[in-house]
């Protein structure tokens, strides 16, 4: 693996760290299997790209992209709560709809952002080669976002959110209305994912309507790998583990791309990636590390 490839893996891993934190919020904290992610990632890319191309300040366009992601998560939650649609189906429906919505926003399937000013334009001015500057700047930004989420989850609303996910019945007994906290939680989760989409589009110089394919799988893999390599008992460590998992996943792929010399072919990449992830988890287990931490207790129906 060359240094350039490694730095590239860190860059992608950091951006997908936001997706991992978002997925951690929905799947782990809220206990809501949310597939909206596959639509909100390209939604963020689309909104940011269209905003930037229409002359908007790139930071404003990126913030707008996060807002659009929030709206997507909010809609999923409302479909589930108001119309009583099963959580999985509600998120699939929104993901499905977002494909068309994203096409509408962009006006065509692929929008290049070349020569446009992006949030990464100031990075060019740093006295550092681009390949080091990008991961460094992203590391600061992603860590700041992580701290913000940690802080939010320790506020009264954040605690209510965690309680509603951990034990809806107990939360209800404490006067927490799930109907209020769920849209907020899913909105926040998808805002993070859309933010990742917006950053990815700007780092790569284009937005594409098929960008979201498999994002949920990458996010989930990152969360699970993170929990294995960094078992956490505090929220600070849990979100850190999600980002670490994302980095580990990307480095694994960068590693898998080098296995062609032993007779593996291009078609084998996903298989090799899966095997390497299994191997990493097996290695972590054999070191005596516990598996998924008992961050929360599941509600038992016959309690």
């Amino acid at each position: 693996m060359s240094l350039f490839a490694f730095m590239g893996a860190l860059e992608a891993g950091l951006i997908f760290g936001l997706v991992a934190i978002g997925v951690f919020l929905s799947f782990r904290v809220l206990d809501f299997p949310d597939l909206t992610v596959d639509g909100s990632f390209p939604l963020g890319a689309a909104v940011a790209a269209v905003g930037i191309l229409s002359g908007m300040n790139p930071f404003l366009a990126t913030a707008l992209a996060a807002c659009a992601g929030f709206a997507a998560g909010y809609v999923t939650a409302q479909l589930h709560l108001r119309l009583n649609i099963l959580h999985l189906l509600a998120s699939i429906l929104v993901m499905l709809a977002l494909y068309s919505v994203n096409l509408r926003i962009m006006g065509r399937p692929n929008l290049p952002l070349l020569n446009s000013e992006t949030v990464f334009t100031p990075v060019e001015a740093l006295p550092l080669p681009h390949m080091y500057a990008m991961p460094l700047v992203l590391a600061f930004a992603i860590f700041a976002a992580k701290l913000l989420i940690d802080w939010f989850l320790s506020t009264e609303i954040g605690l209510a959110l965690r309680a509603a996910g951990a034990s809806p019945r107990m939360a209800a007994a404490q006067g927490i209305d799930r109907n209020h906290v769920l849209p907020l939680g899913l909105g926040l989760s998808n805002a993070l994912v859309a933010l990742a989409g917006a950053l990815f589009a700007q780092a790569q110089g284009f937005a594409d309507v098929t960008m979201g394919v498999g994002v949920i799988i990458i996010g989930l893999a990152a969360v699970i790998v993170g929990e294995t390599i960094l078992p956490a008992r505090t929220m600070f460590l849990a979100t850190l583990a999600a980002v670490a998992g994302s980095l580990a996943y990307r480095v694994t792929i960068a590693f898998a791309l080098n296995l062609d010399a032993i007779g593996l072919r291009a078609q084998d990449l996903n298989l090799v990636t899966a095997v390497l992830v299994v191997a990493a988890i097996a290695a972590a287990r054999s070191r005596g590390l516990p598996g998924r931490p008992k961050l929360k207790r599941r509600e038992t129906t016959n309690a």
Partner: protein
Amino acid sequence: MLFQKLSLLAACALIVTGPALAGEANVKLSYIVDHPAIDAAREGMIAALAEGGYEEGKTMLLEVQSAQGSMTTQVQINEKFVGDAPDLILAISTPSAQTAMAATKDIPIVFAAVTDPLAAGLVDTYEKPGRNLTGSSDMTPIGKHMALIKRIVPGVKKIGVIYNGGEANSIAQVETVKEDAAKAGLEVVEATAAQSSAVIDAARSLVGKVDAIYVPTDSTVVSAIEAVVRIGQDADLPIIAADTSSVERGAIAALGFDYFDIGHAAGEEAVAILKGADPATLPVRFVDKLDLYVNPTSAEKMGVTLPDDLLAEATKVVK
């Protein structure tokens, strides 16, 4: 145990992947997803390189990677390629080319099967790309298709187009159909089908509204072309397709191209660059070799007779 063996294998792989031997061209190729058209383009590229003196394994060190449908993996593949400092990067499909462009401004990149390189921001103009990229486009010659419809169906006023509304490429294609049809004096009526099972209903909805049906290169509709052909025969509606394989399955005619040729055109540019040409001044290549397939039996069943001069021009007459 398994893990140790794997790490050992991986370590070997890292050691083996060394720099290219002197005198060999070091070429990297990647594509976004495994698909028959992309495979054909890849074979065309490799064939053209071999004809130009760069034979895989002999005079060219070629590494092939597939992103297996993931945009992020595609990004990482190109970063790996750039890190290995090859002589040339080959990219099949638009996202493969765009991510390669984001990864390097110095290493020459040759793309293939990029429908609209200008709109994708890859080149400044088709004649003078102006950067480290050039290649070949697979833009469907829809204007020529409209002309073909007018030749086959005299007095045609309205044409129906069946496509999958959820397919980005099809939407883009239908936009072009509308523009080119307007130029040819034709009116377009759209019908969409989200799955192959809905194609027959879409075709039926066009009966009575149009004089002919045009089937673009939409994988959903093409997979159910037999359903469209059935409606065409029942209602005496001529069916003209964009891809030649549909003619063997019952469409009257198609003016298509082979993805092998698209890849081959890009491969010729790759050879030129390896021999010292500057990609910034190598024009983007378009499909120049078109194959006309006709099916006179089908035409009969759909109530039209193919003109003799058209039959004479045909590359293949399906019996």
